[in-house]
């Protein structure tokens, strides 16, 4: 019987983030480095930092790691690496190199699990064209794994939280519900097929999304992770100085997510995210409660939210559908800034 990584944790993946409101307060106390070559820093709450090397090239840097969210070491490695690399894609970049970050209790878990996790990381990095050229491990319980990744992007083609424009249409590339399905799985409320489907979603690279964003000249995007669709959309709306309206009934959902939410299977992270968004969000009268909570479900290795000019949205959507993102959908619009930065209806 292989070792079950889920026995080491109560929550995993991006559900394990520090509550967003507290994090913002803590980060606001740090002095921001001042350097004209820093093109993107944490002040806009972006996915990765960007540093200009020349007029032709900028480096994109990011890191992400978390405790297990699936039982199998190899699958955990695949998902953690996909999630780490995703921040490079969310900035419109091409990932190049990575370092492993591993915390592993060598006395508590068989060491084969360690090598399985790393094997997953290497395989996913290879698929993304990324070379892992080093890393660091420490003894710690429960285990945690992820990558620090460097990518590159043309300085004029950086895609940020601040790049959404009034009139743009919002596209989401992956269905929501990974947090809810994973929580449901731990309570034995999901079918094996439902679990398998969200694992595949979490292992799906956002590389095609990044490529198509550059092709269609998208300038505003982010990936959906621990703060949920609503949290990340809010950060984008704030960064861009606009109001985003999301039509929750158009949002693609992982199979089983809605019925689990309906039964009260709503992970604590969703409530934390709601605490974060509600001051700047208007929830339309009659918004379905389960959809409202799904909008706040913490996603691990989620899809991209892209703000695209309306005349290009149809073509971009078609190409996403034929490039491994069959569930991609138009989920909302970008409007001039109103009294709430985010509207869910």
């Amino acid at each position, binding site marked *: 019987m292989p070792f079950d990584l889920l026995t080491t944790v*109560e*929550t995993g993946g991006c559900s394990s983030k520090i509550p967003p409101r507290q994090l913002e*307060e803590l980060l*606001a*106390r*740090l*002095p*921001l480095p001042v350097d004209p070559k820093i093109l993107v820093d944490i*002040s*806009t709450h972006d996915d990765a930092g960007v540093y200009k090397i020349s007029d032709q090239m900028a480096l994109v840097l990011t890191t992400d790691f978390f405790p297990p969210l699936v039982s199998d070491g190899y699958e955990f490695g695949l998902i953690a690496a996909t999630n780490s690399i995703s921040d490079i894609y969310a900035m419109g970049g091409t990932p190049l190199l990575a370092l492993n970050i591993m915390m592993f209790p060598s006395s508590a878990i068989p060491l084969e699990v360690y090598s399985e996790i790393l094997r997953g990381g290497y395989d996913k990095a290879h698929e993304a064209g990324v070379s892992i050229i080093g890393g660091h491990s420490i003894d710690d319980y429960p285990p945690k794994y992820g990558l620090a990744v460097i990518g590159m992007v043309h300085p004029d083609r950086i895609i940020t939280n601040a790049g959404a424009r009034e009139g743009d249409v919002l596209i989401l590339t992956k269905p929501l519900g990974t947090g809810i399905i994973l*929580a449901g799985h731990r*309570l034995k*409320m999901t079918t094996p097929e439902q679990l398998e489907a969200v694992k595949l979603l979490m292992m799906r690279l956002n590389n095609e999304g990044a490529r198509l964003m550059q092709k269609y000249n998208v300038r505003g995007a982010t990936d959906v992770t621990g703060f949920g669709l609503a949290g990340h959309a809010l950060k984008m709306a*704030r960064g861009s*100085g606009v109001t985003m309206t999301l039509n929750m009934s158009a949002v693609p959902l992982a199979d089983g997510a809605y019925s689990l939410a309906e*039964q*009260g*299977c*709503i*992970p*604590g992270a969703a*409530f934390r995210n*709601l605490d974060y968004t*509600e*001051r700047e969000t208007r929830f339309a009268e009659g918004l379905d*409660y389960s959809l409202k909570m799904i909008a706040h479900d913490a996603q691990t290795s989620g899809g991209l939210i892209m703000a695209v000019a309306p005349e290009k949205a149809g073509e971009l959507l078609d190409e996403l559908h034929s490039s491994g993102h069959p569930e991609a959908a138009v989920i909302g619009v970008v409007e001039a*800034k109103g*009294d709430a930065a985010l509207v869910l209806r």
Partner: protein
Amino acid sequence: MKTVDTRGLVCPAPLIKTRQGLTEASPDETVQILIDNPTSLSNVKRYLADNKLEFAVREEGDLAIVTVTRGAGGEISINETEYCTTDIPQAPSGSRNTVVAITSERMGSGDDELGTKLMVSFFRTLVLVEPAPASVVFYNAGVKLALDDSPVLEHIKELKERGTGIYLCSTCINHFGIKDRLPVGSFSDMYQILNLLKDADHIIRP
């Protein structure tokens, strides 16, 4: 009365059992939920409030007993604002975009002693104003009003407790070398300060 025992369960299981219990109980039956961890308690309370169910909480040591009383059909109109003020601190909507900019230690100019008195009086009055402002931004010599020996420190803390954001200009703090003497507020760069002022509906500058 139906009892839902969630002791020993972690999130979201207590919520699922709560939901299940509410579905199974007859429409006007009272449902009692036993919860022994604070996170689940807070989420269950939030869930009940969001779904407009009336409830009361009694805490006995580590155990919380949530009693949900329902009328016919399970649909009860409750005093929603009560939950909003006790469980879910929210800025009252009218205050959302009022920003107070404190740019000096004194209110107005002319007589320094008078200016100091006026500023103290300004803060004493500001905490009484309904709704509380969305944020107070301190810059230039204004940051000194947030010092640990400031005559208005208590009022600033009170504003923060009422949900007002307290923002201190980090460049100014470094300039005066007072970084270690600021018990309350977030350090903010120009980007954040500018955004706060830019997005304000009203700016009050005493």
